[in-house]
């Protein structure tokens, strides 16, 4: 059973399964016990809740487990139920949860739902102290937590949490699942703003320069205290572990960047901003100060490092300019030297019209860098990425409309369209047309192992030319009766795979999948059809 779409910003709830239409007495039961996934010990006083898969956000019943960790919910109508549990020290988890998937409990005649062993994973935590090289606490530093896993099809590093260090320099990330993490700190010495305000002043006298040693900045620092991401240590966090990750920041002389011709044409002021990528996530570097003098903008207090300079006009029709700069010393730069950035816009069309959800959005996703850019899809199906910094590369295109993914034939002007991706090479404007397909198909299936239904298997629908078709992959997790559902399937040729105990698989990598394809089933999907497919897992 799937909980939400692949989209990493909005958690979209997908209605799964359908109630069995047959009228039956509401006398079925979900019974089992909760144990720690680490120790196997029963967990007493654990909050257990269930709800129907039709209403993922509505709790139907809730109770506390007894001293032996047992729970029993009787008087249930036939159907599929989600099962969740939480306890102090155990974040809220769904039964056999793997990312956005869980195994729903199927209840009804002939179905076994009274021997559920729910293994609850204890929370892990990462905490630590941020100090500077003078061994002083660094308060108010931004601490970013990144996680590296294959949940998005490839092994990628993406941000999962953010916090601030407190007055003693301490930070804490709780309720973490086990896995590989990175801690990244972005901050400014508390005295840095004093130095930049002095330096901004017209009376600043560099000869007197008592304050020279105040004009410092902390480069973006990776645990345990390095500025090169490749030298950063990943944290292998075990279930229930409390990992201490202290980070030392070393101040370096703050740099000044002077941008000439910042304003462009008279009466059309432009905004100049510095941004930085950390594992593909764009962040604002620690506070910098802008001082406009005529047509010149100065950014002060910059730590040395690699940045993206964006020059954006207040006139919306103007193009966004940008360039990558490596700052190692005070520098001057001409705003007009920044290259025009590709403007990507487009439209989603469908014969017979299209109902666009108010929350609908289009995502461009670079699987190599994990960069994801999102923009809204307007009611008439138009979208535009003109205010985003888009570096040349290959991007998969996801169109998320309400509870479904819109897919269809993609064509592009100014870029090359390959399957569900576009390749952006230059700075010419890109115009996309997405003809949303009519008649997406559905597969309802059963996962079996040695002929018996199996719960908790990963089901993957792999399109032809998988590499450029990541948006039309479909996945699910088999429920307690082995059943699964794959929706919004674009007609075409696919392979369907059932894989057990490999939830860390790079499921979008064709080479990886080939190793698991022995029992794959070839399917050719036609428009608007419903399929019943049995998959033998491996």
């Amino acid at each position: 059973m799937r909980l939400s779409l692949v989209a990493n910003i909005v958690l979209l709830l997908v209605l799964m399964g359908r109630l069995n239409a047959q009228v039956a007495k509401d006398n079925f039961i979900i019974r089992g016990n909760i144990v720690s996934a680490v120790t196997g010990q029963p967990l007493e006083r654990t909050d257990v809740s269930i709800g129907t898969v039709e209403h993922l956000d509505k709790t139907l019943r809730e109770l506390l487990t007894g001293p032996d960790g047992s729970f029993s919910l009787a008087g249930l109508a036939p159907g599929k139920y989600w099962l969740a549990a939480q306890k102090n020290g155990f974040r809220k988890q769904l039964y056999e949860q793997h990312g956005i998937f869980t195994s729903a409990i199927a209840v009804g005649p002939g179905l076994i739902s009274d021997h559920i062993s729910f293994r609850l994973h204890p929370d892990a935590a990462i905490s630590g102290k941020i100090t500077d090289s003078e061994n002083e606490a660094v308060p108010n530093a931004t601490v970013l937590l990144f996680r590296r896993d294959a949940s998005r099809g490839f092994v990628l590093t993406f941000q999962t949490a953010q916090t601030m260090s407190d007055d003693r320099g301490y930070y804490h990330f709780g309720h973490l699942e086990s896995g590989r993490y990175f801690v990244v700190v972005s901050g400014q010495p508390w005295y840095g703003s004093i130095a930049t305000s002095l330096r901004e002043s017209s009376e600043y006298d560099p000869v007197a320069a008592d304050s020279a040693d105040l004009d410092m900045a902390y480069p973006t620092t990776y645990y345990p205290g390095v500025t090169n991401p490749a030298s950063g240590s990943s944290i292998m966090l075990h279930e229930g572990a409390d990992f201490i990750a202290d980070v030392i920041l070393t101040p370096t002389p703050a740099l000044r960047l002077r941008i000439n011709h910042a304003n462009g044409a008279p009466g059309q002021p432009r905004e100049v901003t510095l941004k930085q990528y950390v594992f593909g996530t764009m962040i604002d570097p620690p506070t910098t100060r802008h001082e406009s003098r005529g047509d010149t903008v100065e950014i002060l207090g910059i730590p040395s490092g690699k940045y993206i300079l964006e020059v954006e006009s207040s006139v919306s029709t103007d193009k966004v300019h940008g360039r990558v700069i490596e700052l190692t010393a005070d520098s001057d730069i001409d705003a007009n030297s920044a290259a025009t950035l590709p403007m990507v816009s487009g439209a989603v069309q469908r014969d017979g019209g299209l109902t666009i959800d108010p929350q609908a959005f289009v995502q461009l996703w670079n699987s190599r860098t994990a960069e994801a850019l999102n923009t809204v899809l307007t009611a008439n199906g138009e979208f535009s990425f003109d205010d985003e910094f888009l570096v040349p590369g290959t991007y998969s295109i996801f169109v998320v409309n309400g509870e479904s993914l819109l897919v269809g034939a993609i064509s592009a002007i100014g870029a090359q369209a390959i399957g569900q991706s576009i390749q952006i090479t230059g700075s010419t404007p890109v115009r996309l047309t997405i003809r949303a397909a009519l008649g997406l198909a559905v597969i309802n299936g059963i996962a079996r192992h040695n002929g018996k239904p199996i719960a908790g298997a990963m089901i993957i629908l792999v399109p032809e030319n998988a590499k450029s078709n990541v948006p039309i992959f479909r996945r699910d997790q088999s429920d307690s009766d082995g059943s699964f559902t794959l929706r919004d399937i674009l007609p075409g040729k696919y392979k369907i795979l059932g894989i057990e105990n490999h939830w860390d698989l790079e499921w979008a990598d064709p080479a990886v999948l080939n190793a698991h394809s022995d029992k794959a089933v070839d399917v050719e999907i036609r428009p608007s059809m419903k399929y019943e497919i049995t998959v033998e897992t491996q």
Partner: protein
Amino acid sequence: MRAVNSELRRFRSRLTSMAVILVSISSMGAWAIAGAQEVDAAQSKVSKTEPERDAITGTVLNSVTGEPINRAVVQLGGLNRATMTDASGHFEFHNLQGLRVSVTVDKPGFFDERDQAEVLADTAVSELLLRMVPAGAIRGKITTQVGEPIEGVRVKAFQRQISAGRQVWVDRMVQSLTDENGAFRIAGLPPSIYFIATEQSREPIWMPSAVPSARRQVYAQSFYPGVTQLSMASPINLGGGQEVEADFSLTAEMTYKVAGALSTPDEISSGVVFERLAGQDIDFFENVVAHDGRFEIELPAGSYAVEAYTSQNARVSTSGSFVISSDMSDVGILLSSGISIPVIVRTSSDGNSLQEVDDSTAHSMVEVKLHGASNAPSLHNHEAWWAGPHAHEIPYVEGGRYEVELNTFGQWRIESAKCGGVDLLNGDLVVTPGSTPGAIEIALRDDGATVIGRVARDPWSSTTVFLVQQRRDRNFVKIVRTTLGNFRFSGLAPGEYSLIASDELINLEYMNPEVLDSYLATADHITLQSRATANVRLNVSRTSR
């Protein structure tokens, strides 16, 4: 050269503190400072031949431990110069031009010294001593009655402060959200007295039960050590640099379903708020939108005030309280415009008989404020104003005991102020919920007396002067600040008064007679006649608390 004094700024609420001292560097090479306590610059031993004549040196110290503060930033404001102290707290500035500069010091986790006079008194002429007060912190753990941690509770600190001579409890606006261990920590607090409070729960708490219709539960606002009334809470006296632990547990309360109709003089324009009364405060509230005057709400048991605004933007509320102790399906709640007290002002000029004046004229002669007179601490100000310019009455007066503050303008002085049989100059106004009190009747005369005076102190320092008349229940107190050493009070009724010049008293609870008494012992006394002007010269009061 002479000592120059300047008003000392206080930034007590800033965490990165700024202790501001004005230093004068003369072309003669000597410098001098002066503050609340004057330093004789003539004692300077710095000679004209000193090689580093344009230098300032000094040390920054922790006022509690006396230890030097390493890596504090000292700035010379006027010169745009800054430096950092070394491990011994020492700093130096060289090559200064002969200019007057302000010295400020910043360090995270420290505040400026409260009393600058001490800093200056200890300052050797060649060496500035800057003391900083370390910030304190209050931490703790919030648990259920069975000791399980509660995550996501908002914890706040209320600091005791003095506003216009009265004690008030001010939200420090630094919230801490409890973590998965129920732990909170509120840091960066200046030395003071605090109450620690948890906010009411925003979401109902689920009550363990397999029954589909289980009652929802909530937590009301609570105070350390686990009470909902501020009067029963334990204040925490936090010293500089101290970290105090305040663990407490919350009691979940079951909610009841209440549905019914509101009966109001006019249609209600917006939502309705139910506020549960806890002593002088409200420990739980819930908003609900009424449709055609009907509402449905879930609330814990207790006594509630219900309040709404009508389409005419008039406030309507229950006159008493509305008690919930069970599910209620069809209750009627009467909302009315509440108690308002008319104000009638009569004047007499040149000895003529009293004449009633219209409201706008009255507002230009006298202002009336009601201050809640309960001695119990409270988070909200029980105040009501006669706000003009045309208001005829003081609206929305809650039941309770009030001190009536009357201030006249110009030569007008209060001859009498009464409400019913109560003499408001000597006693408090008691408003009974649901009652209709009579008007406040004020008689003014234009024969007020005047006091003009001078404070014996260097004229650049502004001093606060208190004029006090001791009355039966509480003192009559008026305050002015000196301008170039001079001050003036007018519109005073004939009688005996005391005068105190003090900068310290303004930060104290001077409306409390017990606090004022020690100052009155050394005060100057004067007797005023009608239309007379008294001339006085005051010394700055040295009475300590």
